[in-house]
C-alpha cells in the first residue's frame, strides 16, 4: 500500500475532486479512493477527517446532514464555488509541475 509524501501533498485535490463530481459522505470517499486506485492507495480515516476539517475551515467545502441511513443521519459534503476554483487551479498547477518533474524523471535507462 502506497502512502507517500507526494500523495499526501495532494490529498486536498483528491478529495475535492471526488466531492466535485457529486456530494459524498466520509466512508463513500475512502471507498471510492481505494476502488479507483485498485487498492494501491488507501486513505486513513484519521487523515480523511482532518482534511474535511481543513477544507471546511477554508470554505472550500461545506457539509449538511442527509437522510437517515443505518440508524443515523449521514454527514454529506458539498463543494463550494471557491472550492471549484481552487480545484481547477490545483489541476493547472499539477499539469505544470508534472511537465517539469518529467523532464528529470523520464528518458534515462
Amino acid at each position, binding site marked *: 500500500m502506497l502512502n507517500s509524501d507526494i500523495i499526501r501533498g495532494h490529498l486536498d485535490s483528491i478529495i475535492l475532486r471526488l466531492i466535485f463530481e457529486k456530494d459524498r*459522505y*466520509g*466512508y463513500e470517499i*475512502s*471507498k471510492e479512493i481505494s476502488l479507483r486506485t485498485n487498492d494501491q492507495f*488507501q486513505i*486513513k*480515516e*484519521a*487523515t480523511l*477527517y*482532518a482534511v474535511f*476539517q*481543513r477544507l471546511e*475551515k477554508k470554505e472550500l467545502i461545506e457539509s449538511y446532514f442527509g437522510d437517515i441511513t*443505518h440508524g*443515523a443521519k*449521514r*454527514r454529506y459534503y458539498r463543494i463550494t464555488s471557491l472550492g471549484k476554483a481552487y480545484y481547477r487551479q490545483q489541476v493547472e498547477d499539477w499539469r505544470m509541475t508534472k511537465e517539469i518533474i518529467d523532464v528529470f524523471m523520464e528518458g534515462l535507462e
Partner: protein
Amino acid sequence: MKSIRDYVNEMFNEIPDSEQKDIMKQEIIQNLEEKVCDLMEQGKAEEDAINKAIIDFGSIEDIKKELIGKQPGVKNNAGLHLGYSIWGSALIIALSVFMNFYYTPRVIWFVYPTFAVLWWPLSMYFRWLKLK
C-alpha cells in the same frame, strides 16, 4: 458494535470538548460502523472486521491538530497587553510626577521610579513585536 464507539470515544478523550468534536465523533463512529458492516458482508467475522476498521483508522494526531488549532483562546492578546502596560505606566509616572512637585518641589526624584516603571511597557512592546 459497542467496541467501535468505545474506541472512538477513547481516542477523542485527549481532545478538548467542542461542538465540532462531537459532530466529528458521531460522523466517524457512523462511518466506521458502516465499514464494519461492509467488511462483514465480505465474509469477515465481526471481531476481525472491527479490528481492521480500527487499524485502518490511523493516528488521531492529524485530527487533533486541525481541531485544536481552531480553538479560541490562542488568539493574540499581545496588543491588548501592550496597551494596558502603556496606560498603566503612564498613570504611575503621572502620579510620581505629581507627588514629586507637590510635596518636594526642590528635590527631583520622579526620574527613578519612572525608569523602573518603563520596563513594563518596554517588555510588552518587544513581546508584541515578536508575536505580530
